[in-house]
Structure formats: C-alpha cells, structure tokens
C-alpha cells in the first residue's frame, strides 16, 4: 500500500483525504485541502515559509509526511485569525511582499506561547528559522516583541 486515507485535524476541522505515503504535509495542506496560506518556498527546510503548528510546536511542513500528522492537532496560518501575533504584524507593518509572513507568524506564535519571557537572544534564535527575502527583519522582530508584551498582558 503506497497510499491511504488519513484523517487530519486542521484548525479544529476534520479532513478525510486520500494521500500517498510519501506526500509531504505541505503538499496535502495546499493541494488536497486547499489551505493555501501555508507557502512553499525552498521545500528544503531552510526558509520556514511552510511553517505550521503541530501539537503546539512549530514544524516545517515541507519536511513532514502527511501520514505522520494523523491524530495530531494541526494549526495553519488560517487558524490564527484575530490573534495577538497577527495584530502585531499588522500594527508594526512587519511584511513587504508578504510571502514569508505566514511562516514568520506561525513561528512567532510558537514563541509567544512556549517562551512567554523570551530574551532577545531567544527571539533571535527563533527568528533564525525563517528567511525574509525582502529583508524586513527589523519590523518582524518588533512585531514579535510587541506580541510577546501584548500576549503577556492579555494573559494576566
């Protein structure tokens, strides 16, 4: 059997999809399910444009098989509407062409939830996972810091 039907939980919705065992999660999310906010970039684990959240952890979906994601809680950029991190990216104008933005937001969301007291070096370490070809890193860093502050304030 080189293919199967899997059930994926994405943004709290259930999807039953027929996938090849070798299909990456990125391919399935975009081409089978139609959630095109997750972006294909290098397809090699270098750029972070395809970052999604699996069970609370940022993961590069170009380097994960769809069959591995069964029974796990998947969040894509479409699942982060009206969140603290999304608002911070808008307020700080932390995007230019916007292609890398979903990956940065997914990664930033992981940071503010898993490292709410992140130091500058921790923020830098997280942001090194993603590449912005427009080089808008300054605004992205400011947005993540703003989201960290606002998220901690919201959680009081």
């Amino acid at each position: 059997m080189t293919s199967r039907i899997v059930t994926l939980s994405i943004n709290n919705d259930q999807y039953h999809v027929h996938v090849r065992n070798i299909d990456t999660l990125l391919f399935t999310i975009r081409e089978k399910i139609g959630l095109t906010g997750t972006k294909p970039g290098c397809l090699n684990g270098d750029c972070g444009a395809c970052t999604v959240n699996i069970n609370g952890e940022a993961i590069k979906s170009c380097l994960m098989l769809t069959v591995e994601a069964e029974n796990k809680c998947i969040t894509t950029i479409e699942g982060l509407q009206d969140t603290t991190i999304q608002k911070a990216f808008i307020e700080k104008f932390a995007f230019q062409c916007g292609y890398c933005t979903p990956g940065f937001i997914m990664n930033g969301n992981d940071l503010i939830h898993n490292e709410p007291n992140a130091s500058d070096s921790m923020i830098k370490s997280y942001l090194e996972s993603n590449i912005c070809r427009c080089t808008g890193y300054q605004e992205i860093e400011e947005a993540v810091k703003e989201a960290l502050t606002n998220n901690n304030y919201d959680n009081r």
Partner: protein
Amino acid sequence: MMIAYDVDYYNPTTIEEATQLFHRLVEEGKKPVYYAGGTEIITLARSERLDLDAIINIKSIHECLLAYSDENEITLGAALSLTQVIKTNFFPLLNQTIAQIADQTSRNQITLGGNICGDIFYREAALPFLITESKAVIANRTGIKEYPFKSIFNQKLQLSNEDLLVQLKVKKNEVNFPFYTVKKRKQWDVGYPLITVAAVKKKEQLKVAFSGLCNFPFHDVNIDKRINDPSLTAKERLDGVLNALSSPVLSDVHGSMDYRHFVLKNLLQEVVDAFKGAKT
C-alpha cells in the same frame, strides 16, 4: 513539490516488530529505511538522491523516546527531537552542541539518532559521545546490544543494514566535567558549519572532537596529546594537530583548506583558553 516515487509506510510500536519488519522487507527485495525526524530522508527523496521503497517510522517505539537519568547513567532515545533532548538538560555538553544544529524549528524535527546516523557528514551530535564514556544501544532481529560508542563510531556509526539505533547512554559522572563547544560558520549565525568543536577537561587533560574539519566527525587521541603538551607553542600545537590528522582537511564551498587551517588555529587557542583554571 511532489516526491516522484511511492513508498510503503509502517508505524511499528515495538523494537521487535520494527526489526522483524525490516528483515522481512529486505528478504522481499525491498529497500526499507528507519525513519524518525525525516528531515534528511525527505530532502534526499525529493531530489531523488535516496533509493528507498519502504519507510519504517520508529517514533511510536517507546524505547526510542525514553529520556531518563538513574544513579549511573543517562539514557536518551534515538527518536527524541533535538529540542526534546535540550529540554531534558541531562547532558550540558550535548545540549550546547546540538543547540547549534540547523535552526530552532528544524530542531523540533531533527532527532538525536537521525543526526548521528545521517548521510550529511557533520553529525555534530556524535561529538559529545565521542569524548565521554558513552554507549550506543543497537537492535536487530537477533536482539538488543550495547556497544561503547567510541568502538562503533568510525567516521559514522558502523551499523549493519538491519541495525536500529535505539538509545544513547552516557555515564552520569562524565557529564559534570568542564566542557566547551563552539561552532564556527563562514558568515552569519545560521547555515552550514565550517568547523564544530566539542571538548571536555578530564583529569587535567583535554579531549577534543571535531566536525567539519574533515568530511566526517572524529576524536583522535594523538591530537589530544598535541593539544595537551605544555611544552609546545600555539603554532607547534597547530602544526602537530595538522600532522596528526589521518585525513585531509576539507576544502569545499563553505571554506577552503587554507581557511579551515586558519579557523582551526584560532579555535584551538579558544578551546585552550576556555579551560584555563578549570579543575577536574
């Protein structure tokens, strides 16, 4: 975007099931691979540089996910992600060494065993085990055995085709020695490494392991002797280290041989300086 060939996929829950399955698939003429983080396998498969037709995912095998510390040793499952290993904080030298591998998100996927067994030659996670009293726990269909890590790691882990790396173990008293580790890149803080060094000071002697200097990671006692010889100047130590190397220094897109010589010279001084005053 699609990977061009099809594979069977298995998700065994026991070591016995996995090793028997691997053997059966080989007997059927298939080309199975053990799979954990998947980062290297997917990358190589996408570019058709890996010949496989069956994937055996080991991330549902309990023993491969264990992380614990008892009176005598620390045990780390081969399928733990680098992030999970770092969070245990059991082995500080290992933590600091693997925290420099790839990037934060990738470390959520790359596994301890995957980095050690990978085809990509850096294999930095092996360095701390090469310079401490460590063991590799390896399974195949005949059973499970423990091997001194140093005895089974020669450029890469010497696994037979059907062997599965289950765990890494390190003696508990070994993780308390003073240590130093650093990764040098040609530029920036991400990207492929030039040279990675891991060192411990044990009984007043330095033990140093290298990755990226040659096209495999290694620890060489002859190099330790040179580094620990107080009668030598810094230049003599470097010359001694270069003369003691059993393989040529790497020259590639990340750095020429001459540039690596230059970086190594400064690195060795950095390592020696880092241990000044450290008592063991």
